[in-house]
């Protein structure tokens, strides 16, 4: 017996690779949900470790709200070109055009909730039986209880009371036709772990994660990037600020933080000292304390 165990980043990495390989081994038609955010970028890096020099045993799937930061889309396309892997894009605009989703009205309208419709449609259309996502348990209380292999019924619903027990590292991916499994390989990582890993592995990120000058407006106490999708009016005063984004979601619901963190080391220092958690900068969670749980039950990531 030795007392020396793996360093925490090595252990988290090894666990995530193990989970990705379980997905490859257990499912017929898996997919990796790619948002362009740092968590799914980390997943891509882990997939390279798990399967290279072979091809990924799954395509990347991006649910595009049409309201993304242009920097994210550029990053996505460059990355896919470098990897030589398949990318499938599900467009929220298509769901709206087909009448399956209705665009929200009013000043704070967002397509964030509509993503679920497009996601479920894309899953059904391609017959995916497993969708790998970058959610982490430290993000939110409801996520803290979700399994690494999380079974969804044919409506994409998560039932917290009917979760399968997950023992040791044995993941049960057996499902009935029509059901699918959401798999979260970095469940046990924290925001800081992800950043430390990105630094260690020298992974490139979309530029919006780093401090830059941008036109911003203030909505509901949060700093938002000024963009045409935000339904701006004369009450919205545009200010030029040094900002960065801690998550990369839809432009309508992703708030900026004022920051001078131009380098990854600056970001890690900033987060270490930060007094606001990552999802605190997401307006979609602010609605009620049980907001995430309700969204997950409805089929959200």
């Amino acid at each position, binding site marked *: *017996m*030795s*007392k*020396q*165990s*793996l*360093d*925490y980043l*090595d*252990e*988290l*990495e*090894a666990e995530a*690779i*193990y989970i990705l*390989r*379980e997905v*490859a*081994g257990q499912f017929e038609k898996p997919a990796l949900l790619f948002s362009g955010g740092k968590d799914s970028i980390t997943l891509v890096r882990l997939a*390279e*470790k*798990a*399967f*290279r*020099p*072979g091809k990924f*045993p799954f395509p990347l799937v991006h649910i595009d709200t049409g309201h993304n930061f242009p920097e994210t889309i550029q990053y996505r396309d460059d990355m896919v070109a470098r990897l030589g892997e398949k990318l499938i894009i599900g467009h929220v605009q298509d769901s709206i055009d087909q009448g399956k989703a209705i665009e929200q009205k009013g000043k704070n309208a967002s397509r964030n909730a509509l993503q679920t419709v497009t996601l479920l449609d894309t899953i059904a259309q391609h017959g995916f039986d497993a969708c790998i996502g970058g959610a982490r*348990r*430290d993000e939110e*209380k*409801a996520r*803290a*209880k979700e399994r690494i292999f999380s079974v969804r019924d044919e409506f994409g619903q998560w039932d*917290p*009371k009917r*979760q*399968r*027990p*997950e*023992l*040791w*590292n*044995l993941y*049960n991916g*057996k*499902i*009935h036709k029509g059901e699918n499994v959401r798999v979260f390989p970095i*469940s*046990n990582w*924290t925001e*800081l*772990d992800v950043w430390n890993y990105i630094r260690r592995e020298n992974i490139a990120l979309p530029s919006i994660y780093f401090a830059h000058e941008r036109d911003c407006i203030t909505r509901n106490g949060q700093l938002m990037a000024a963009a045409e999708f935000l339904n701006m009016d004369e009450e919205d005063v545009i200010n030029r600020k040094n900002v960065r984004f801690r998550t990369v979601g839809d432009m309508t619901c992703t708030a900026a933080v004022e920051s001078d963190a131009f380098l990854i080391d600056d970001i890690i220092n900033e987060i270490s000292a*930060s*007094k*606001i*958690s990552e999802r*605190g900068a997401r307006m979609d969670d602010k609605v009620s*304390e*049980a907001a995430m*749980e309700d969204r997950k039950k409805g089929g959200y990531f």
Partner: protein
Amino acid sequence: MEILKFITAGSVDDGKSTLIGRLLYDSESILADQLEALQRSNRKNDDGTIDLAILTDGLKAEREQGITIDVAYKYFQTDKRKFIIADAPGHIQYTRNMVTGASNSNLAIILIDARKGVVEQTIRHSFLVSLLSLPQVVVCINKMDMVDYAETTFTQIVDQYKALALKLNLQNVTYIPVSALKGDNIVHESYNMTWYNGKSLLEHLETVEIPVDDSSAHARLPIQWVVRPQTEELHDYRGYAGRISSGSFKVNDQVTVLPSGFSSTITKIELLDKQYTEAVAGQSVTVHLADNIDLSRGDILVNSAAHPQVSQQIEADLCWMDTRVLDTSLTYLIQHNSKVTRCRVQEILYKFNINTLDKVYEEDFKLNDIGRIIIKTADPLAFDLYQDNKANGGAILIDSRTNVTVGALMLRASAE
């Protein structure tokens, strides 16, 4: 920096959620917006202070019922270690959640109410910790503020528990007198119990040793996936991908594939752009062998010098986790490492009364029942005894009608 995974177990009113809340709060692991949500909540202690238990009560249904109903994972870190807490409920019908949480932990915190001492649930939780072979146990005697911080109360309970630990063969037990509500000995030392010279709970968690088995004798690599690019330039590339579950492998080691029994030599251990001369338990790797032998998902690669057992008839402890009772006439699936095969529970030897630790002889096996059975499998399993090697001695049962995980198995002996 290492990761320590631990589970907390206690009865409904032992103040378990408060203890975790206190650990997070006093180690400054709560962020401003979470604290703000906490203060907005209208749940307060009698003296008007924040109810720290809210920090771990995740789901709506629980908040309504006021009890934790499922395993929740919490994360925090100090300068010395990263911690993952599996918060398992203490309520009687949720044995399965504690077994689940314990299976992924290397330390258990058992909470005892200083006013009550060792009670039925303490026995139950300690039995589960022993069943799952957790290497470290911390007994927190809580609510010391309610017994005037009396040393005699503490030592009486320690003596009570020592008798139980002996009976259950629990090794490495540490006792700490605490008050989660007031913060004594959780993160900071207590000024109310100067008679206690040991470490605070957090200090103990930061320094306790986590043993890792890296001997080559226990080298086990369950194969998950075969990497075969089949491109022109990598035409003959064949890498066997998996995570080493115990022991260590070196390049040039003689290895055997089980259950087939074919042998070969390791020529390369790699992962993406890195190559290793040696890899140890916990590492995910891709290995290459000198010979082109039949090896695929479900097989296990072991050091040729020391084999695990290979058997189709195995004695095991079973924890039943489903509302449907165990049906001995039914074919189930057993998942052991990356191997899934059909099986039947051939015989129920006995069950445990987990409150008294007595053996009982009953025909039915219900939700939360634990007992000793004999299982017969369609394909042979290459396994170690759970008590010797948790990673290669645990398995799950799946009901092929519902696809639900219905049982946890701790493999104890070959019954062939």
